[in-house]
């Protein structure tokens, strides 16, 4: 057996020797070489071709990351294992991103080194167990976002056929003239082929691109692609056929629950297409299928207005698309092939006939043919087909008359008549389908049992279609799906109508609809055929059968699309469809619209709200409405009824109902009872599916958070993350990051908060919209509080962009957020302005949201400071306090009381102020809430300092005050690093050496000198002298300050990594 060849790379000779000794003792390993820096590593790797390279990261000359990149690129069979003292996420990301397949911490040598080498030789990835869990899991989180293809309820087969360029048959006449035209215009962003059906447009483009040296991808469009979401999904799928990793971000946006605005999507798509490093054609066939008003037209228009460098669109259409062609022509941006170009010339006609029928017509016949058929390709093909069984061809031509249409008709009948009766029947029946495969043909065309010829089936049918070249166009290379040439299909359909009664034809459509539904291809085709069959009922039934399973996958927009395809009268008459509609309102948070629909349902079901089939769902929705109208008692009642009657599994609303149950229970001060029930459900693993599990954990987190018990809230998050990650539940992951971020923020741990909230904000399109807004708001305040004004502004911009995507209920929250930010920045003018312009918002249930316009309003009133403003503020705050006390919402009470204390203090009501503050502190202490005080700035600090001893827990007050101090130090530190984030260490008086950087990092982990020395394999004395230099470079006096400053520098450079990295 061959020994594993290992190359050791580390700038520390002693360490190399040690590893060499260790590995040399193994039977199956041989050390083929050593290197002391990155460049040497590359040279030696090239020469020695090792199986495994053990690579240190920080080295002189070229560092390990770059060396890894080189080696992985040049020597694909060499596996690189990173070896480092650093467990920081940044390094893991960089090394794994550069192509390393393993990551090992030096402290884990020797045991894990052997393990690692064997693992990577097996083809596995190896990650040291000592590497912190969050680091690896964060990396894997980013990598494991493998989306399933099936987000559109279409089979992957059909997906394939849409991306397949028309296969080229052998009877194609080369059209050199046209290919020259196409070649001449290939550099332009758009090539347009516009002509009616039957001109061989697709074949022309397909054969041109086949011989072209640029790569190309194909997308055949149909009417459903007018939906922007679907179009983007297919578009990116097509482009990824050539470059598998491109446009991932756009794809994730296109698949998110809340579709971002058109401008966001266009920007993302444009940017990502700029990454193309060589020209590429993207063909959009049958572009006329896109409805004129579709946003897809806007997308393409804008893409063409500022085309990415290497993107070349080819649009094939039967009509001129509405893409501002006049402008494009004026700017020389479009190359066109029009009907006239596509007509067969006499020469080409002759060539076609010679090829297909091996016949060379006389000049006279040719002229006549040209006159009659006008070079229309499909006409010529029909001619050639008809010609197969005619003896005197020349005469045949001379006798053609009546113009193209008549000729076409005549030829069609000629061809049809020559087919067997069976073939004819199958041709006509299959014409109702836009695309067909063997099983589908069997389902529709097969004669009823008991009638004649049974030995004719789909296989024979398809075989005959192909051999007779009967206008059946293959849609994929496997020969599974076909469609008819459009004109042929039309003619067939017309003939079908002559031969079969409308009832019989409707029967065919019904069969088709059934087949599609049975194959799981619900939605488009199944309902389409049902509707054509005049069968609104059936179409409605299809939706009824399937909407719940789609809703439980969080794909409410699919259900919305289905409902829009049905006529309103059908929906109004069927309670289940109304229920589907209600669930859409529910998802869109349209509480106003819900009650009416719910009443309708109850009425249709016989007026007895207790007894009917859908009671539970209706009750659930009613419960939700009640909750948000502040009626906790009724909400709890409704939801308990709903949960009681329904079994645990099989109720798609169960998860949501359980969340409502938890929240309503908390509101009504029944949290012990409610939580114990929730935990019982959580422990019943038999009936627990992942989505439900995450929801149960989520509601437990909510309850504790609202109760101001942060520690308890936190405990459920790791499990939630695990489940969510394992099952790709983006929404749940977004919640985890958001809530954990909030928890850190409340504790005053700004860096941790920022880190998590940034992650959450990258998932904002998957997130529950209100929470996404909340994430951005919390992020804005976190940045501002840690002195990073620029970042705060940038995030504010993102917030504006996000809500511009349509949902105006959040516009008021965003405006309030901006006003509060201005206040924090000392620009009270802007804040007062907001106050004037905005009326008092309605106060609803406040839950755990960090920013509520009503509280912001009070804060601004307080800053105004007039007697009236303060009075108003006090009134409002007392009202909110009372409400939240009734709701048992402790976390909001803390914020309200803190603010109230300041208002009272400003009014000179010192005693009242102090007692309010004391109450706030009492509520805040168990959970360690610091943010509500911190955010109110120095005046609050003052207030705290003046609090008499007996009013509060001194230790806690000290904790809060020290948070004020740290915030100040942080702000100063950030001022240093804010100039050039990421190059912070270079901004210091002198740049840090590699060694000093290593030590600095370990310092932030609160290690003692001895521990640091052990990690770095140097003596504690050396550490001490390094530290001396470090302190002077950082401008600090002691270890603690050094640690703080170091942390700030490192986190600001991490921030850059987060900013510039795309997916997370």
């Amino acid at each position: 057996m061959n020994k594993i060849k290992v190359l050791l790379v580390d700038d520390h000779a002693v360490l190399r020797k040690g590893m060499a000794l260790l590995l040399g003792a193994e039977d199956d390993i041989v050390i083929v070489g050593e290197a002391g820096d990155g460049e040497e590593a590359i040279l030696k790797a090239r020469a020695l071709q090792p199986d495994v390279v053990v690579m240190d990261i920080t080295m002189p000359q070229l560092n390990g990351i770059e060396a890894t990149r080189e080696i992985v690129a040049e020597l694909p069979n060499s596996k690189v294992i990173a070896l480092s003292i650093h467990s920081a996420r940044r390094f893991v990301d960089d090394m794994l991103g550069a192509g390393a397949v393993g990551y090992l911490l030096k402290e884990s040598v020797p045991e894990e080194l052997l393990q690692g080498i064997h693992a990577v030789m097996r083809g596995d990835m190896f990650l040291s167990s000592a590497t912190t869990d969050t680091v690896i899991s964060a990396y894997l989180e980013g990598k494991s976002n493998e989306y399933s293809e099936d987000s559109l309820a279409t089979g992957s087969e059909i997906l394939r056929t849409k991306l397949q360029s028309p296969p080229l048959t052998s009877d194609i006449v080369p059209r050199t003239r046209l290919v020259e035209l196409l070649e001449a215009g290939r550099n332009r962003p758009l090539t347009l082929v516009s002509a009616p059906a039957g001109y061989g447009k697709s074949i022309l483009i397909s054969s041109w691109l086949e011989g072209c040296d640029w790569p190309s991808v194909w997308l055949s469009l149909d009417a459903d692609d007018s939906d922007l979401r679907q179009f983007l999904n297919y578009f990116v799928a097509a482009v990824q056929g050539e470059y598998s990793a491109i446009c991932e971000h756009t794809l994730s946006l296109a698949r998110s629950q809340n579709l971002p605005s058109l401008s966001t999507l266009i920007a993302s798509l444009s940017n990502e297409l700029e990454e193309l490093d060589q020209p590429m054609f993207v063909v959009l066939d049958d572009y006329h299928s896109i409805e004129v008003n579709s946003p897809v037209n806007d997308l393409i228009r804008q893409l063409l207005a500022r085309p990415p460098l290497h993107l070349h669109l080819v649009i094939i259409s039967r009509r001129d698309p509405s893409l501002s062609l006049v402008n494009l022509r004026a700017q020389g941006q479009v190359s066109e092939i029009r009907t006239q170009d596509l007509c067969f010339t006499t020469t080409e006609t002759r060539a076609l006939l010679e090829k297909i029928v091996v016949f060379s017509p006389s000049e006279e016949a040719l002229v006549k043919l040209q006159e009659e058929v006008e070079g229309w390709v499909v006409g010529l093909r029909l001619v050639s087909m008809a010609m197969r069984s005619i003896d005197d061809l020349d005469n045949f031509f001379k006798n053609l008359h009546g113009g193209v249409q008549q000729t076409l008709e005549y030829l069609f009948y000629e061809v049809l008549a020559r087919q067997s009766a069976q073939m004819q029947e199958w041709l006509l029946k299959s014409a109702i389908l836009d695309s067909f495969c063997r099983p589908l043909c069997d389902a529709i065309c097969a004669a009823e049992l008991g009638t004649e010829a049974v030995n004719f089936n789909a296989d024979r049918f398809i075989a005959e279609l192909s051999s007779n070249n009967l206008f059946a166009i293959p849609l994929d290379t496997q020969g599974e799906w076909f469609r008819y040439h459009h004109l042929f299909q039309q003619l067939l359909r017309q003939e079908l109508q002559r031969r079969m009664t409308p009832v019989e034809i409707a029967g065919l459509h019904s069969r088709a609809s059934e087949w599609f539904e049975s194959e799981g291809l619900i939605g488009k085709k199944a309902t389409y055929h049902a509707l054509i069959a005049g069968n609104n009922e059936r179409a409605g039934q299809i939706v009824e059968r399937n909407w719940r399973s789609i809703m439980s996958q969080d794909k409410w927009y699919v259900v919305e699309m289905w409902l829009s395809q049905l006529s309103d009268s059908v929906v109004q008459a069927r309670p289940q469809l109304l229920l589907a509609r209600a669930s859409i309102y529910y998802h869109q948070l349209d509480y106003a619209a819900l009650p009416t629909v719910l009443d309708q349902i109850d009425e249709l079901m016989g007026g007895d709200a207790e007894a009917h089939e859908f009671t539970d769902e209706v009750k659930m929705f009613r419960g939700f409405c009640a909750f948000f109208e502040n009626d906790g008692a009724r909400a709890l009642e409704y939801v308990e009824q709903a949960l009681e009657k329904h079994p645990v599994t099989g109720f798609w609303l169960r998860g949501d109902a359980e969340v409502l149950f938890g929240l309503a229970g908390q509101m009504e001060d029944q949290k012990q009872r409610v939580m114990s029930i929730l935990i019982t459900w959580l422990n019943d693993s038999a009936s627990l599916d992942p989505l439900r599990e995450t929801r149960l954990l989520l509601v437990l987190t909510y309850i504790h958070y609202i109760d101001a018990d942060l520690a308890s809230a936190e405990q459920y998050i790791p499990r939630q993350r695990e489940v969510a990650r394992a099952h790709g539940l983006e929404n749940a992951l977004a919640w985890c990051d958001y809530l954990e971020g909030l928890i850190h923020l409340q504790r005053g741990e700004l860096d941790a908060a920022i880190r998590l909230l940034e992650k959450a904000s990258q998932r904002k399109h998957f997130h529950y919209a209100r929470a996404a807004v909340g994430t951005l708001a919390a992020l804005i305040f976190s940045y501002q509080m840690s002195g990073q004004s620029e970042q705060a502004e940038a995030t504010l911009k993102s917030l504006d962009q996000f809500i511009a995507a349509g949902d105006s209920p959040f516009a008021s929250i965003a405006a309030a957020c901006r006003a509060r930010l201005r206040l924090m920045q000392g620009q009270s003018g802007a804040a007062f302005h907001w106050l004037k312009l905005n009326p008092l918002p309605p106060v609803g249930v406040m839950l755990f949201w960090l920013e509520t316009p009503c509280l912001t309003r009070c804060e601004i009133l307080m800053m105004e400071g007039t007697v009236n403003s303060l009075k108003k503020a006090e009134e409002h705050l007392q009202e909110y306090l009372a409400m939240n006390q009734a709701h048992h919402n402790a976390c909001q009470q803390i914020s309200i009381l803190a603010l109230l204390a300041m208002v009272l203090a400003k009014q000179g009501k010192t005693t009242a102020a102090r007692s309010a503050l004391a109450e706030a502190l009492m509520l805040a202490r168990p959970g360690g809430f610091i943010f509500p005080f911190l955010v109110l700035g120095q005046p609050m600090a003052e207030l705290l300092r003046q609090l008499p001893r007996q009013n509060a827990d001194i230790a806690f007050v000290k904790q809060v005050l020290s948070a004020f101090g740290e915030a100040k130090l942080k702000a100063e530190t950030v001022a240093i690093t804010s100039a050039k984030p990421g190059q912070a260490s270079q901004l210091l008086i002198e740049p840090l050496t590699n060694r000093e950087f290593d030590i600095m990092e370990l310092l932030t982990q609160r290690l003692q000198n001895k521990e640091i020395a052990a990690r770095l394999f140097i003596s504690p004395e050396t550490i001490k002298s390094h530290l001396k230099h470090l302190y002077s470079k950082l401008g600090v006096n002691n270890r603690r300050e050094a640690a703080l400053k170091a942390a700030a520098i490192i986190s600001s450079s991490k921030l850059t990594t987060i900013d510039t990295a795309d997916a997370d």
Partner: protein
Amino acid sequence: MVTQYFSVPGFYRIEVQGRLPSIWSDRFGDMQIFSPSLGLCNKVTFLQGKVIDQAELTGILNNLYELHLPLLSVQYLGGEQPILDAEVN
């Protein structure tokens, strides 16, 4: 002056270059098809009749396009059944 709304019926006359067999009228929403015999050089065809709404009209125009018949004119004849032109009959 008669105003035609988008979704109500109306009577239209369409003129195209080329010949269309009159038995094809069922494909064109039951419009009547006739070609004036004005000598062999100028082959035009008229379609005239009631159209349910603009959607139907545009469907008819599209069919004519797909059948390769250049459009010469489209004329609105009012909401009432017009008296057929003696000339073109």
